[in-house]
């Protein structure tokens, strides 16, 4: 039979269903319910990968989410391959393809192992000292080495193609969230559920029961039932409550403020291809807001830190029990136990009960529990008290251990003797899994009996129950879980009465009697001892000690210097050992050393899952105008502006973008152009104080703007800098229609609301955003009047009757429109506003009417070009938050005589009245065919001087103007207003500066003629 390590009759796997997968191309048989780890172990495979730094062989150490280093790459598809998957947490299925990582050319013959040979030269801080601090390498810098170091280290390989899977996130509110479905969690959930509260129970693995699944099924009863039956009972009871949700394959990865907890559910990862429902996402993030939380996250066993403790075949004692009782696999043929506490003895008893061989129990303690020792004697197990493992042997799997007895001071005494074994089950004690508690910002408490941290003071609405609270006896665990469930339900305002607890009978070892030993003596000098603390990052006890000697006395700094706990496992089994070693090195207690910070996520979370549905087109939803579909039909090129997608140009078949822009801009000045201007922000302002309000928010005066008239306004921040501009129309004395920049619509509304609500609540003014209510088509050019006249009824377009900067009501086909005679091009222009649902209809009416006149749709690029020809600014292009109206030489827009307005006082600040400020000017390059680069720096000499180069300013806009037949540019130049006619030079990267003449920025005015 294959699977020679499988124990008949043991485990919760389904032996009726064989499942096989491949590991490094070899077919590995297993059963439904196996993880990759348990199936590998069943076949005698314990080595899985190589370590991060030294490429040392790494085997399976834990049985679940605690394992530090046994990770594989799943799949080989460049789009869906999944790196760094823990073999202990991934269930097998047909078609699963796993590969070892961080080794080349193969797992057992790895070139990177040379790092291991040179391990003595790679102590803590090696890279910093050698490549950043050393004189020898000062001539090279860190950046030279970094890529090589990165290549040598590293774990699995990231996918290189776009992720083909879908993910989703869902929001849930619940009364009681129970995290962990071991005995405590099940008891808590069952008791909370009886109250009628909405309960969510979360379990990381594929089945409920937690540690009960790892106990000898014949050794324990709960209320007279076998553990599996009790679990089934609880599960059935939970299913009776409609308000209860049970999530397996789900990890609570983050505990955030105000009981906000992130869960990651692996929906399909564990399923074979044919069972994956296409309608379901690969993974799902649950964003849970819980009134109360019960933490029942169990405890994580910690190993002992001893010489050569990192070889494959050295496993946590609890993991050995889990593989045996949950998966029916005894991971070794001859198992040596090494411990400083009682709990590991249970592993020996379970192995004997399953018919396995125990090579002995090596216990660091002198005083042993008498009853337990007697039980070992009866089982025929050799016991070595006051003894240590001082070394191990075996390349890809251990074959023996060396033990020495210890003297009264805990030092190695006498010679080493060899014990043959192919598995060492090790236990250094149990650390309550306080990660989520600490994330919730609760305070930890040092527990002397556990020699570990456990929850102390709560900060949020949570309570810990069971092993995560430091409680290890099953009867107590159930009691604590029940109490936590009841209290949580009551705290969430539900009423529930306690019921009698089931009685637990067990012959399992439930005592600890732990004697902490942070580093097991080896009898060797420190530099010859390879006692690993962090198996993933290759941090040895000696690295931590060296760091302490070098002066690192903050636990957070030591972590970063040595990389302790910085791997994907975040030091789950190793951190407390590390703190203990640091404490010993400094001669202080562990709580005085403190802990590193438990950060979210508790376990790595796929970035795709966090992104959820917000990918591709849904990453940032784009708004389209009512005319958007028309632009699409014309195959327009689009650009994002604020949240909007706007047509940038409408190239004809075969026409380049540049040519299209030139054609469109030319048409707007020679015949007519039409622009979709819907995206402009629009705010409806009403109230008897509307005029006063406008006077205070804009720089210019609004007192005399009569109904029917429009005015351009500049808006500042209190710092005096231009923040927005736009045209506002007076509809009636108490009613105005304000337009803002497309990108500024939301922020302007917030700012106006802010002043209105907090500074001027006495004003009778009401603001409503009407951006989406109006669609706007702007028709401009010599033929605009004719075209608009043929479409709009009820308005006499004669400029005498309808002058510039006024607006009028009219109709189009009976639909009311507001027409604004304003201009952003310098041409005669009509901005026709129509209720949004008629937007496309109006647009097509205008296009049809304009056809005989050569009406040309133009996009935002031509719009920018046209306004630059006329010298109109764009806020955010000419301005950058450091530009005053004076800097723009737009003092005409600032009313000197009216009262206060936002930013007014700042216009007389010492900084804003400096005479050497940059000012807006036009630039004409001497070579009219050369279009400068926007953002290019402006200097005062024909050659670029040696740095630091004195900069005069920069180009803000630059275009080739088809109407002027040459390039034009706008620029911010120091004292620009006084430099008219001067020549400056525009710097270019890797090329000669380009000369240009400073002119006024209204290029349609006299600027071009004067310069010629």
């Amino acid at each position: 039979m294959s699977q020679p390590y499988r124990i008949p009759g043991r485990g919760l796997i389904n032996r009726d269903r064989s499942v096989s997968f491949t590991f490094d191309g070899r077919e590995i048989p297993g059963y439904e319910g196996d993880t990759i780890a348990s199936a590998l172990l069943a076949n005698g495979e314990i080595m899985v990968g190589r370590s991060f730094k030294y490429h040392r062989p790494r085997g399976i150490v834990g049985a679940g989410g605690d394992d530090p280093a046994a990770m594989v790459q799943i799949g080989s598809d460049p789009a869906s391959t999944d790196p760094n998957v823990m073999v202990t947490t991934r269930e097998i299925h047909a078609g699963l393809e796993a590969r070892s990582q961080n080794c080349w050319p193969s797992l057992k013959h790895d070139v990177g192992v040379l790092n291991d040979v040179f391990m003595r030269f790679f102590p803590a801080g090696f890279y910093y000292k050698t490549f950043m601090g050393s004189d020898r390498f000062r001539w090279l810098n860190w950046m030279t080495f970094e890529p090589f170091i990165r290549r040598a280290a590293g774990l699995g390989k990231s996918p290189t193609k776009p992720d083909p899977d879908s993910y989703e996130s869902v929001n849930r509110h619940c009364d009681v969230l129970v995290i962990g479905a071991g005995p405590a969690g099940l008891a808590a959930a069952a008791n909370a559920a009886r109250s009628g509260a909405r309960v969510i129970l979360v379990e990381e693995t594929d089945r409920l029961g937690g540690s009960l699944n790892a106990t000898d099924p014949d050794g324990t009863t709960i209320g007279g039932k076998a553990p599996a039956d009790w679990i089934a009972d609880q599960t059935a009871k939970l299913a009776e409550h409609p308000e209860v949700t049970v999530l397996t394959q789900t990890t609570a990865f983050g505990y955030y403020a105000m009981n906000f907890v992130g869960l990651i559910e692996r929906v399909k990862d564990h399923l074979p291809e044919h069972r994956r429902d296409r309608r379901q996402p690969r993974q799902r993030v649950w964003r849970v807001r819980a009134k109360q939380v019960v933490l029942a996250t169990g405890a994580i066993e910690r190993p002992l830190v001893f010489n050569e403790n990192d070889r494959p075949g050295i496993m946590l004692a609890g993991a050995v029990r889990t593989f045996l009782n949950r998966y029916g696999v005894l991971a070794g043929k001859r198992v040596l136990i090494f411990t400083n506490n009682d709990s590991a003895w249970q592993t020996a008893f379970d192995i004997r009960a399953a018919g396995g061989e125990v090579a002995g129990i090596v216990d660091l303690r002198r005083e042993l529990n008498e009853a337990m020792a007697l039980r070992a004697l009866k089982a025929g197990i050799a016991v070595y008290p006051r003894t240590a493992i001082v070394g191990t042997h075996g390349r890809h799997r251990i074959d023996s251990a060396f033990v020495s007895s210890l003297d009264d001071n805990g030092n190695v005494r006498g010679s080493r003797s060899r014990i043959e074994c192919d598995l060492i089950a090790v236990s250094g004690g149990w650390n309550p899994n306080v990660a989520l508690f600490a994330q919730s910002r609760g305070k930890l408490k040092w527990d002397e009996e556990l020699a570990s941290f456990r929850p102390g003071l709560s900060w949020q609405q949570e309570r810990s129950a069971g092993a995560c609270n430091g409680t290890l006896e099953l009867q107590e665990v159930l009691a604590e879980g029940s109490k936590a469930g009841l209290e949580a339900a009551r705290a969430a305002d539900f009423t529930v009465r306690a019921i009698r607890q089931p009685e637990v009978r067990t012959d399992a070892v439930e005592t600890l009697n732990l004697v902490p030993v942070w580093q097991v003596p080896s009898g060797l000098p420190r530099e010859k001892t390879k006692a690993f603390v962090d198996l993933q990052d290759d941090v040895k006890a000696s690295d931590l000690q060296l760091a302490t000697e070098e002066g690192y006395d903050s636990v957070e700094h030591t972590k970063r210097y040595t990389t302790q706990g910085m791997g994907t496992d975040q030091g789950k089994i190793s951190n407390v050992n590390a703190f203990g070693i640091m404490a010993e090195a400094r001669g202080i207690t562990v709580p005085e050393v403190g802990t590193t910070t438990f950060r979210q996520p508790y376990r790595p979370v796929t970035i795709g899952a966090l992104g959820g549905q917000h990918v591709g087109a849904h990453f940032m939803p784009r708004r389209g105008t009512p005319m958007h579909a028309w632009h699409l039909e014309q195959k327009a090129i689009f650009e994002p502006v604020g949240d909007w997608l706007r047509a940038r140009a409408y190239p004809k078949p075969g026409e380049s973008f540049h040519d299209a822009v030139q054609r469109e801009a030319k048409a707007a000045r020679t015949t007519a152009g039409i622009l979709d201007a819907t995206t402009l922000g629009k705010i409806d302002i009403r109230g008897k104080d509307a005029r006063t309000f406008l006077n205070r928010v804009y720089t210019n005066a609004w007192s005399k703007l009569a109904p029917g008239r429009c005015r351009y306004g500049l808006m500042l921040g209190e710092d005096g800098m231009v923040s927005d501009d736009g045209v506002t129309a007076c509809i009636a004395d108490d009613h105005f229609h304000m337009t803002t920049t497309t990108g500024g619509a939301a922020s302007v509304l917030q700012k106006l609301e802010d002043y209105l609500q907090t500074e001027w609540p006495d004003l009778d003014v009401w603001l409503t955003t009407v951006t989406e209510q109006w669609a706007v088509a702007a028709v401009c050019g010599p033929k605009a009047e004719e075209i608009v006249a043929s479409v709009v009824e009820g308005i006499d377009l004669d400029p005498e009757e309808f002058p510039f900067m006024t607006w009028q009501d009219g109709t189009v086909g009976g639909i009311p429109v507001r027409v604004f005679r304003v201009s952003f091009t310098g041409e005669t222009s009509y901005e026709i506003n129509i209720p949004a649902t008629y937007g496309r209809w109006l647009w097509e009416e205008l296009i049809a009417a304009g056809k005989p006149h050569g009406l040309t749709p133009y996009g935002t690029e031509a719009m920018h070009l046209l306004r630059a020809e006329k010298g109109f600014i764009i806020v955010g292009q000419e301005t950058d938050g450091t530009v005053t109206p004076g800097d723009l030489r737009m003092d005409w827009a600032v009313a000197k005589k009216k009262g206060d307005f936002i930013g007014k006082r700042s216009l007389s600040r010492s900084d804003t009245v400096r005479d050497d400020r940059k000012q807006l000017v036009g630039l004409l390059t001497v070579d009219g065919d050369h279009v400068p680069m926007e953002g290019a720096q402006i200097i005062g000499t024909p050659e670029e001087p040696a740095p630091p180069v004195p900069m005069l300013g920069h180009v803000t806009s630059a275009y080739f103007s088809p109407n002027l037949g040459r390039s034009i540019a706008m620029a911010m130049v120091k004292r620009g207003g006084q430099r008219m006619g001067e020549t400056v030079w525009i710097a270019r990267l890797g090329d000669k500066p380009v000369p240009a003449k400073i002119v006024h920025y209204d290029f349609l005015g006299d600027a071009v003629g004067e310069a010629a």
Partner: protein
Amino acid sequence: MFVIDCPNCGARDQSEFTYAGEAHIARPTDSENMTDAEWAEFVFMRTNTKGLFAERWWHATGCRKFFNMLRNTATDEIHAVYRIGEKPPKVTADLPATPAGEASIGSGNDAVKIMTRDEEAAS
């Protein structure tokens, strides 16, 4: 992510709100008579409080109203929300002892990760 109790709409998720800076900074009405330094104090200078802080929030996707909040910036505990124009209510807050100190619990910072002996004795 906080839950914020909007004075108009009740408890809502933080994603509906926009932070709007320090509260109770009145815009001067006589700015013409202020020195540059005095004006700069209003425009540019804000306190950077570690501890109880009065700040403004805007319920951008709800009632669109601004309101005030008393929040302990060391712990993110929200002690009170109150309307614009109202005075901050008196609250009892667990405040950092000194500018460099910590609230006794809730910041997650090094100094308050582990219970003190006094706290252990009291519990």
